[in-house]
């Protein structure tokens, strides 16, 4: 329990909380969220519109549902190191983009399949009625499909985000950054003496992840009541592929 006391002391050190300190907590949290968010934005832009369009036009059905399974088969750790390897053999700096590239590659498959499935599961009768009223394809996508699928897509984004945050921490192994992962990995390297930092880092990482998760969950709830649809427990099941 001495460890708990040491951990608390480590966390309570005021110098760590100065925003300007490079190895301080605010800096690391900011770094962590920056890397994660950049990766998520790019991944979302690359996967969601494409998935929505393919789903709307009913193309690539078998492939689209299996993409997420393929993505799951790729180990995050291996991918990070692979990208780092490729960067180190070329002129690219290994500090930022290799990690982000790996994160993007990891975030895309679940968001893609999730968005695809969400659009496909829109009630065909509603679409039928819309077409019958003379709506164009663009109109249907914008005014119907996206609105009805939004809660499920939001769940997919949240789950991918959580995964990216977790994987960013592992990035600390191959970079000088890696946000909160730095504390964990760095603390490990220090042996016994570094354990307070390890535990503190782990607690901070867990808390930040939960915070992001709950915030996004809350926003989802607002989205659900705005769109007036479904329940998010069911949406989560679609997103994590619970029914297969």
């Amino acid at each position: 329990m001495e460890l708990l006391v040491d951990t608390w002391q480590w966390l309570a050190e005021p110098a760590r909380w100065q925003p300007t300190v490079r190895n301080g907590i605010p800096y690391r949290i900011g770094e962590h969220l920056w890397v994660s968010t950049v990766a998520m934005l790019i991944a979302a832009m690359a996967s969601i519109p494409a998935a929505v369009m393919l789903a709307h036009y009913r193309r690539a059905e078998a492939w689209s549902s299996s993409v997420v399974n393929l993505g799951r088969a790729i180990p995050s750790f291996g991918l990070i190191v692979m990208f780092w390897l490729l960067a180190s053999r070329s002129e690219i700096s290994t500090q930022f983009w290799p990690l982000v590239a790996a994160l993007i590659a990891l975030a895309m498959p679940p968001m893609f399949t999730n968005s695809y499935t969400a659009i496909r599961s829109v009630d065909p009768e509603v679409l039928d009625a819309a077409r019958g009223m003379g709506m164009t394809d663009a109109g249907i996508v914008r005014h119907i499909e996206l609105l009805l699928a939004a809660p499920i897509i939001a769940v997919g984004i949240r789950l991918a985000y959580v995964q990216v945050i977790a994987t960013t921490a592992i990035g600390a192994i191959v970079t000088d950054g890696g946000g909160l992962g730095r504390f964990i990995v760095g603390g490990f390297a220090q042996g016994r003496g570094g354990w307070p930092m390890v535990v503190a880092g782990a607690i901070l990482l867990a808390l930040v992840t939960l915070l992001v998760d709950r915030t996004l969950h809350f926003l989802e709830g607002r989205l659900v009541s705005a769109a007036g649809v479904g329940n998010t427990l069911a949406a989560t099941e679609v997103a994590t592929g619970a029914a297969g």
Partner: protein
Amino acid sequence: MAASTRPLFEWSWLVSNLDRVGAAVVQHLVLTVSAVIIGLCLSSALAAWCLRHPSRYRRVIEASSLLYTVPSLALFALLAPIVGLGYINATIALVSYTVLILVRNIVTGILQVPGDVVEAAIGMGMTRRRILWTVEVPLALPVIVAGVRIATVTVIGLVTVTALLGLGGLGQLILSGFRVLPPFPTLIVVGTGLSVVLAIAFDLVLLGVQRLATPWQQA
């Protein structure tokens, strides 16, 4: 910058180090299979408990979702002061990740068995136990196996991270390839590649098991 770089893949190395690679694969599989099996047993018990009282299900899902959200690195680190670094640490963490997926799939699987089928079974005079094992479980199997597939593939990926705890497996190959100077790409490529191959292989085998166990769906 880097010293002389090694080629991305050295076939000769692989051939002469098959035993080392093989050992890593075995270690990886031991961790994976034990975690999934323990996870399945635990989840079945939890699912059975949840099915008796629907309100428990919601709470169990919330609790395991919470655990699922905690990054693996953090979970390993938090467990370390309690159980040290090693198989127990890794297994506890891995099992907790499988629980969310498996409990949800087992419960959903059993609940989606058509109500009229169960009602007919009761009315014909089948005992509750017989109904569970000869009607509900077989009909829930597709959904349950789908969950086992997802859990297995996920765990195979997570096991690579356990290399940071000092455990073996394919993650150790990756780590070794990375920590040496100059970096040894073959180790990294083999470690990552085999992890993908294992994941796909298990997925396909389990899919095959599912198909074999549900002949009425192929008709």
